[in-house]
């Protein structure tokens, strides 16, 4: 029996286990998955929790349910990866797992401990986050009784997973406070280290315009050094200050500590890999998928989906001694919720920025690219169903291919 060991049963690890289990001969291959948490969280749903749109029911399910019966799931934190010895040591009873192939899918996680002042006396009082389940719930309770003031959303450092989520939060906040007839008592600001609202020029232009229309301010190129919780101030490395009443922070995102400890990570504990095949740049039997990998594309569930599809095909080639195809192009596809039952859709890859047009069927849609529409909002809401029922089990999604398509897009 050959052994595949998958670290992390989140979005990428679960999809990879399902795909490989489907494609490989079960008499010859044994797949084991390790995760420290029995619960699978639908993280895109965290965005909706603070506004009372989603609750526990929509975002929390047991991991086991999404893995095939013949795949072994072990619940334990991972202590150490020893790539030279082809083995992994777990925290539970110091169990040792050997592998022929290792797939790292331990994701990337918010680390408020990385910024002085965040997790002190004001944490979850006037300083909140929504990148964790607990954080999203705490923020919901805060917003319920909040009387208004200056709400600042700040991005500590790039890259973060789902780089559009902070923008969506602001759009939804604008809608939420308007519904509650208190928008005039709330000032909304985005504080970001980026030169503008987003990373890609055309999308930034559209999003900035939408921010202006909604009276949401942007403070660009602000790299936060520390937070002064008592004075309620964000302070940048060049000594600029932004005051707030309520801070919704997107903390530094880092890969799992075990990646760093095992000498497999970059300065943020993300694993350097070939950007088309996910093969580690250091070891020829280690791959990294999803947010855990250091890649020049967005860290998102949709990206993980395209990545796993591309990876699974290649993995079969690879173990049969054939060359892998450079078949992952950095494809990302993100719905951006813009409030009032509308949304935007962006579709891009390593080389092509988000462009206007129709998706997935050229000229028909139904989704509109880089343009607000109601159907895009339904796309975003439908994504949850798709996630639990199609993405995680590794089913093919009709009309949507791994590689980005230029058909139906307008460039100038």
């Amino acid at each position, binding site marked *: 029996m050959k052994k595949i060991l998958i670290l992390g049963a989140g979005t990428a690890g679960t999809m990879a286990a399902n795909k490989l289990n489907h494609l490989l001969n079960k008499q010859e291959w044994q797949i084991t998955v390790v995760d420290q948490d029995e619960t699978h969280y639908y993280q895109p749903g965290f965005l909706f929790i603070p506004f009372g749109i989603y609750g526990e029911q929509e975002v929390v399910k047991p991991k086991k349910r999404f893995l095939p019966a013949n795949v072994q799931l072990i619940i334990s934190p991972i202590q150490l990866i020893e790539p030279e010895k082809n083995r992994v040591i777990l925290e539970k009873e110091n169990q040792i797992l050997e592998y022929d192939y290792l797939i790292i899918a331990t994701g990337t996680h918010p680390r408020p401990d990385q910024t002085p002042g965040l997790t002190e006396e004001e944490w979850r009082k006037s300083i909140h986050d929504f990148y964790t389940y607990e954080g999203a719930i705490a923020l919901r309770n805060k917003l319920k009784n909040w009387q208004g003031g200056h709400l600042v959303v700040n991005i500590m*450092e*790039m*890259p973060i997973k789902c*780089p559009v989520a902070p923008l969506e939060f602001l759009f939804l906040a604008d809608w939420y406070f308007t519904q509650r007839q208190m928008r005039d008592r709330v000032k909304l600001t985005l504080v970001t*280290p*980026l*030169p503008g609202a987003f*990373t890609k020029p055309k999308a930034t232009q559209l999003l900035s315009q939408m921010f202006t229309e909604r009276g949401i301010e942007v403070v660009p*190129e602000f*790299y936060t*050094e520390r937070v002064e919780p008592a004075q309620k101030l964000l302070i940048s*490395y*060049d000594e600029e200050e932004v005051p707030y009443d309520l801070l919704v922070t997107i903390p530094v995102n880092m890969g799992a500590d075990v990646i760093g400890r095992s000498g497999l990570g*970059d*300065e*943020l504990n993300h694993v350097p890999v070939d950007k088309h095949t996910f093969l580690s740049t250091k070891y020829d039997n280690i791959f990294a998928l999803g947010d855990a990998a250091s890649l*020049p*594309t*967005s860290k998102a569930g949709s990206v993980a989906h395209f990545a796993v599809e591309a990876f699974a095909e290649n993995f079969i080639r690879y173990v049969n001694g054939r060359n892998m195809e450079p078949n992952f192009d950095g494809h990302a596809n993100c719905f951006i919720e813009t409030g009032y039952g509308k949304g935007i859709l962006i579709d891009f890859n390593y080389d092509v920025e988000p462009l206007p047009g129709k998706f997935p069927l050229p000229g028909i849609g139904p989704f509109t690219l880089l343009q607000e529409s109601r159907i895009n909002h339904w796309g975003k809401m439908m994504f949850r169903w798709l996630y639990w029922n199609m993405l995680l089990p590794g089913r093919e999604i009709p009309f949507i291919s791994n590689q980005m398509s230029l058909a139906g897009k307008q460039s100038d």
Partner: protein
Amino acid sequence: MTTLEIVGKQVEFDEEGFLKNPDDWTRELAEALAAEMGITLTPKHWQVIEFCRQDFQRTGESPTLRRITKESGVTTKELYKLFPKGPAKKVARIAGLKKPTGCI
């Protein structure tokens, strides 16, 4: 794309001011680009520039801010003093490298 005459030579830059052809880079060019940003290069500046150029040779990518501070020993605070407002991008421009990809 723009072409500028710097220290007596025609040099091409992309829309964001990053050097098109890495071979056009010289120390004089770096001085001139820095001067344009209002920066006079000191040995400390050069330590950072040289680190970034070497790192680029190793990895093929311009280092992010976090990488510079972790690997070169210069603190973030110092970097902001040396290259105010967006040090990673400014160093990459002065060092003749491409735009850092840390921001996606």
